[in-house]
Structure formats: C-alpha cells, structure tokens
C-alpha cells in the first residue's frame, strides 16, 4: 500500500466519521464531529503540496528536491484558527446547556416560555 493511499483513506475515514457525528442531535457529538472534520481538512491541506518523503522544505545547497513549504504554513494557520473555534464552540455549547437545560442543537425539546417563544423554536422553516 502506498503512502498516498494511506493518507487519502485516513482523510476519507475522518470526514465520514466527522459528517456522521456532526449530524447528531447533541452538541457534544457535533463538536467532536467538527473536530474530526477539521483534522481531515488539515491533513488534506498538508497533502495539497504533494506527499514527498525525506526532503527539506527550505533551501539547502546540497539538495536538489524539496517538499512544498507553503501548505505547512497554511496548515499551521488553519490549525490555530480551528483550535480557537473549537474552544469557542465548546464553551458556547456548555453555556447554552447550562442556560437552557438542553444540549440539543436545535433546542426543540425545550419548552419555551412565552417571552422568547418567537425568537426560539420557530423561524428556521420558511
């Protein structure tokens, strides 16, 4: 099995698992799903510079072939951003659970009181 096949199937499995989890009803699973998707995306970005073994990314007199350094920088940016976003969504989900008493993403199991009945539960469907 080639290296490419391994990386490609890893990305595929991560995305499949991520999509399955992201479609679940509870926020914890959704957050896990988003995290898996972001891992897959990072691997994918990394592979977009082609998979090269044992080559330096920066200039060296004695080397003729290089690996592309740019995707590595892009992945670094993407990791930082997704890390921040994941931390934020975890805190948000926690706050939402503590305030509404439900960790369902669509919040439909929560009986809404009269005042915010309009802004809550309704409005998503045309």
């Amino acid at each position, binding site marked *: 099995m080639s290296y490419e096949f391994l990386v490609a199937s890893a990305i595929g499995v991560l995305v499949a698992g991520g999509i399955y989890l992201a479609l679940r009803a509870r926020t914890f699973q959704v957050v896990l799903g988003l995290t898996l998707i*972001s891992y897959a995306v990072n691997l994918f*970005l990394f592979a977009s*510079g082609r998979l090269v073994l044992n080559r330096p990314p920066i200039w060296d007199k004695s080397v003729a072939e290089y690996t592309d350094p740019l995707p590595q920088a892009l992945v670094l940016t993407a990791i930082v951003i997704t890390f921040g976003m994941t931390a934020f*969504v975890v805190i948000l989900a926690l706050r939402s659970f503590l305030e509404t008493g439900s960790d369902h*993403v669509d919040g439909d199991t929560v009986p809404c009181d009269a*005042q*915010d009945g309009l802004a*809550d539960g309704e409005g998503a469907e045309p």
Partner: protein
Amino acid sequence: MSLADHLPILPVAIPALAAPFALLLMRRRRALAVGIGFAAALAQLAVALLLMARVSGGTILAYALGDWPAPFGIVLVADRLAALMLVLTAVLALIVLLHAVVTRADGKGWHFHPLFQFQLMGLNGAFLTGDLFNLFVFFEVLLIASYGLMLHGQGPARLKAGVQYVVVNLVGSALFLIALGMLYALTGTLNMADMGLRVREVAPADQGLLRIAALLLGSVFALKAAVVPLHLWLPRTYAAATPAVAALFAIMTKVGVYSLIRVVPQVFGEGAGAAAFAPAPWLWPAALVSACVGFAGVFVARSLSEQAAYAIVGSTGTLLIAVAGWSGASLGAGLYYLVHSTLAGAALFLVADVVARRRGSFGDTASPGPAFGGRGTVALMFMAAAIATTGLPPLSGFIGKLLILQSAAALPNWGWAWGVILGTTFIGVIGFARTGSAVFWKTNEACETPPAPETRRDLLAPALALACLAALSAGAGLASAYADAAAAQVLAPAQSAAAVLTEGPR
C-alpha cells in the same frame, strides 16, 4: 513610498488598532471607548472615500504586504468594487454604532466596541485582499467577531441560535479550506490574479477536480450569502441577535455575494476550461428560489425582526438573480441593488428595534398592541423602509429592481427573472402592509399604554439609514454609473492581473 501609497492597508489597520484600545478602556470609561469606536468608524469612512476617489478613474491599487512581490506575498487590491464595499461598510458601521450607543445596546454585554471593530476589520480585509487564503483568514476574523456580537446581550434564545450559527459556519470554513487545498494543488498559487492565469494550464485529466473546487468554493460563498437551500441558519440567527447587531449583519450576506463576484470572473473566468463559470448554472435557479422563499417569509413573519431577516434572504436572492447573469449590465445593476439592499435591510432592523422599545412586553410582534406614543413618526419610518425593501417608487429599491429587470431582459431566460422579481415584490408589499397595519393601525384597547420613551433620539439611526437610501435614489445616476464601471472592471480580470503582477519574476 509616500504615506498615500499606504492607503489600502488603513481600512484593516485602523480597526485593528482601535479594537484593543477600546478593550482596555471599555470597563472603566465607557465614554472613551465609545469615542474610540466613533473615531475609528469615521476614519474608516474617510479612508474609504479617499480610496474610492483614487480608484474611481479606473486605476487598480495593489499593495504588497511586507513588500513581498505579488504571487509570493499577500497583496491587497483596491479597485472600484472593493472601494464601493468599503464605503458601504463604513457608512453602515457608523449608523449601527450610533444606534447601539443611543439605545445603550453596547452596555448590555461585554466588549461590544472591540468586537465591533474586529468585525469591521474582517469585513474590510475580506473586501481588500487579493489572496484566496487571506480571504479565508479574514472570513474567520469577521466570523469570530460576529459570534461574539451575535451572542451580545446573551439569553437562552440567542445562545441556542448562536450554537447553530457557529456550527454552520465551522462546516462552511472546513469546506472553504478543502476547496483552497484543491486549488493550490492544481495551480500552485493562492494569489487570485495569478490563479486566474494558471487555471488555463491545468492538465485535461485534472479538469474534473478543478470543477469540483469551483463548485465547492461557490457553495461556501452561497452559504455565507444565505442562498436557498443554504439559508436556513439566517432567519433564526438574525431574528435572535440584538437588533443593532442584526443591522450590521445585513452586510454579512453581501460578503458572500461579493466573494462570488470577485472570485468567479477572476479565477473561474473564460479561460478556466471545464470550470469556467462553473457555479453559474446552479446560482441562477437558487437565486430565483431564494427570492421566492425570502419574500414568502416576509409574507408570513410574525415579528418585525423576523420579517427583516427574511427580507434579507429575499433581497440577496434578487441581487443574485442580477449577479448570475455575469454580464456587465446585469452585474452593474446588481451592485447598485447590493448597496441599496444592505442599507434597506439595516433600516428595517433598526425600525423594528425602535418599535420594540416602545411597545413594552409586546415587542415587535406583528399583533395589535398598545397605542404607543409617537406612533406616527415610527409608522412613517417603517413605511419608508418597507417601500425601499420591496422596491416601490420613489426610493432606491425601485431603481435597483428596474435596473435588474432591464438588464435581465437581455438574458435568454428573462421570463423567469421578471416573473420572480415582480411576483416577490407584490408578495412583499402585502406582507409589509399586513405587519404594518397590525402594529401601527389596529390597537388593542385592553392593554395599558406603556410608558412613553424617555428619548426620541433612537429615531436618529434609522432616519440616517433612510436618508442614505434617499441619497442613493437622488444620486442614482452617479451611483449606477459607478456600479457599471465597477462591474466592467471586475469582468475584465486581465486589468487587475496586470496591476497585481507587475513586479516579481513572472
């Protein structure tokens, strides 16, 4: 380099500097934070107008960050379209900031002013950048600020809608990155102008991948623009947000539309092989359905803010009908309508807030409530905003829709565009007439009159938004000439490629 050459970086640098200062001062001295907010917004408006004056002749300013030559470093590109969006953002920001300060919405949570400035930084950066990955970064900047602003004021309904909004946008960001990775793998560049040249050299075997990347990117932008079927996040989010924030978010869907207008002709233009205008055949029917769904929502909405949210979906649909024509005339009409619909959507949200502040526990629900004081003025404002949104004369919505209809007449399937635009206008008029008469005309004698508002100053911001719409109508000739010129410039990507890629080895 003289100082004037650094003009394109200022719309990003000013809010980036203002935000931390506002953060430092917010706790102790609110007045100073407010002052910084206004000063930064005014400075952005001034810079945007200066930029507009410099590029209106047709020059394209390319600003290489760190002076790295173009395809290798990140460039900011200021052309007519970017300047137009910057001016629009700055005007909207001033109106919204005024409303937030006057109604004291900025004091209902923490960090309103810093988040507001970061939001502006993200918006300005997204409009200026000439690098696709940098566009992603600015998208994230404006999104994470918008998460904070959307949750501003807290409350269970807002948190619930906030979770959905964040999750949807995280998925959108993941798709954006996948599309970027594919494009980089195929073309070896992230600079939009350079990519536009290199897509022509993509091998025939990779054409399918290029097409997938184009469609993925198109769907990410469509998600931001809230095009049907990717619109479901918008009404709940916008109706749940603080009205002043929702008014600012009126420009957020336009960021998606802007990105489509910017990226599709430049990267996936004529020479892109299988990917040439790949999102276009999908965009056209989606835009038609969006207009229908949006104005149907306007028709059935049960509160003014929900109605305003659906009006945003509907007007973005109408705007995309014009954009999906991809001709100079239709894009020009679309850009005029874009400016109009942003301001009109913001005016609707602000008027909804003014109503909610006067009706006590009834809020802005479309049901007969108490006879509140000063109804006449508020009703007139609501009527003006509704007229603008639906596109009745004399306000700019009428001119915008007229321009779109005129340009659509040249397209092969113009019947659909005409039918949908005219039909949705009619439905929208009925919808606004229904909520307007329920809120302002019928009064419920049984409920006691809420106390009169202490101040009428909160009418200022919506009045300002309506004044901008009136100015846009009065200066329609100038504005649409500029929009046409901007559209022509966007559809001729070779100009911008020449301006961006002058230096360096290419």
